[in-house]
């Protein structure tokens, strides 16, 4: 197994009248095909760590390596390019673009990357939707779908450019238990069937059962890392 992502002594603070430390001296790594679950109480810094790992935010100290690349020297353009090519996001609130159809939402990252023709983008979007069991919803708008279906579409969109790593922020936080189980299983299958790495931030204890490794974070620091 190769290392997909490494965080080395990462610290992130918010300046202001009262400075707040969101993440403090966190080091961790994610291997290829590994399902890592980050858990912890609200406000512990789980999402902030995820944003740092996902190159949406930059650490004040330490560094994040994507493969062998040190991203601390990257500018906005390089960070955006890495997010587009190598990372996929799934958020708690699906965050699909309301005015686009399900198919268009999934095709959007592919069209931005520009490696496939418009027809190929649509074909791949349909294929991903089919794999996730929502192919029959492709022409609908996001508001016409159930919560579970939307989250599956969001996962399809995250997979659009065949990323190395899927970052999920409370992916089941807004779903009923049946849909949650379904999404958990899909993420689990991604690591097994497609050799994708998954880092999921969650309150959902059931994730511990499907993850390869769980990291508990409290007050911005890793307290326990268990396999």
């Amino acid at each position, binding site marked *: 197994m190769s290392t997909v992502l490494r965080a080395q002594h990462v610290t992130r603070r918010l300046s202001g009248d009262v400075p707040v430390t969101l993440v403090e001296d966190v080091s961790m790594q994610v291997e290829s095909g590994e399902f890592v679950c980050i858990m912890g109480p609200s406000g512990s810094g789980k999402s902030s760590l995820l944003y740092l790992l996902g190159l949406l935010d930059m650490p004040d100290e330490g560094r994040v390596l994507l493969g062998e690349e040190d991203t601390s020297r990257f500018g906005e353009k390089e960070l955006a390019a890495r997010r587009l090519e190598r990372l996929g996001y799934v958020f708690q609130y699906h965050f699909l673009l309301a005015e686009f159809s399900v198919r268009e939402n999934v095709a959007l990252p592919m069209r931005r990357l520009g490696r496939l023709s418009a027809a190929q983008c649509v074909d791949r979007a349909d294929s991903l939707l089919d794999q996730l069991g929502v192919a029959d919803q492709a022409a609908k708008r996001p508001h016409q779908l159930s919560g579970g279906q939307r989250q599956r579409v969001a996962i399809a969109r995250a997979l659009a*450019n065949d990323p190395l790593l899927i970052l999920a922020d409370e992916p089941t936080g807004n779903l009923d238990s049946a849909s949650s189980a379904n999404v958990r299983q899909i993420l689990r299958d991604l690591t097994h069937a497609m050799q994708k790495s998954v880092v999921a931030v969650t309150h959902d204890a059931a994730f511990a059962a499907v993850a390869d490794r769980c990291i508990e974070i409290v007050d911005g620091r890793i307290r326990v890392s268990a396999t």
Partner: protein
Amino acid sequence: MQVSLAVATTHLRSRLRATLVSLGGVILGVAFFLAVSSLMRGSERDFLKRLIDNNPHITVYDEYRLPEPQPAQLRWSDGAVHVSHVKPRAEPRGIRAYPEKLAFIESFRGIRVAPVLTDSAVLLFAGHQQAVSVSGIVPAKMKTVTTLEEKIVEGSLDALAADSNGIVLGVGLAQTFHLHLGSTVSIVTGAGTNHALRVVGLFRTGNASYDEEQTFVLLKRAQALLEHPNRVNRFVIQLDDATSARNVAAQIESAIGYKSVSWIEASEDILSLLLVRNIIMYSVVSAILVVASFGIYNTLSTIVIEKTRDIAILKSMGFQARDVRTIFLLEGLIIGCMGSAAGLAVGAVLMRLLANVALRPPGVTEIVHLPVWWGPEQFALAAAFALCSCLAAAYLPAQRASRVHPVDILRGAT
């Protein structure tokens, strides 16, 4: 770019009513810009055409711009020599050796020239007398440099050419003296010569003072009346290309020495006035588009606020700040392009309506139509200004959108 265009069009469709209002503003702005500016430019071109057609393109006078350089100035050209109170050389007025100079000017390509001897005189008829300007002309040459022939309402210049005692008058002067074709009038010049002349032509230019004061006789007759044998005191020149008048006048003046005044120099005050008028006109019509661009700014700002979360999502997907900026600039551009296209069409309809308006100004017999100029530059200018306004209006919202930090939005999202 295609993705940005897809997102941009989706944004505009999502706020269709506001988009249509913005679009309406641009359409009206472009249409009024086009209609008003084409009317103003049309009237300007009409005025300039009259100015150019009714006046000589260049007039060469029997004067010098600068006094003749004195021997001391020539001898010590680098010295601090100032000679004051230089008396003009005593010689009869007029252009010396005019036939040679006339031939020289005629050698220029695209130029037509007529010699004229002009002076003041007094016209006498049935106890009335009036000061007039009498111009001695060669009718065949005068026809090539003025529109006088077209302005003649009775008689002709050919009749003048055939009658050495003929005179051509303005209609206004003829009415004052109750003259008609064939009437005889007396003319007294400053030299004291008194001579009877027969009216062989009447002209109407529409310029009342000109029609009441100007008269034409044969050049030979004028030279005899004014006692300036073999002299003329001006050359009237017409060019194929009126816009080159300034350069040609300078060439003539440097070659023959006499003051040569182009129509541009003679009309500097009027041209300045037209320039100021154009600046005012463009300021006013541009203001309409500037107001319209505020509508676009408002619409796009609202979209940026409404779509902040979508912008954050696009950025988390890998869209760069530049992509986001492009989306909103494209939105401005789409409104600008659609508004310009429709605005030009509406503007063309307005121009057609304006061109059909018939007016009869007080005291004028002929019906005049509003002079609308259909120049393509006017259409291009209206469209270009609209596009620039729309892009400028979109720029600030686009910049704001490009600066959205996805983490700030995702952290606070519910």
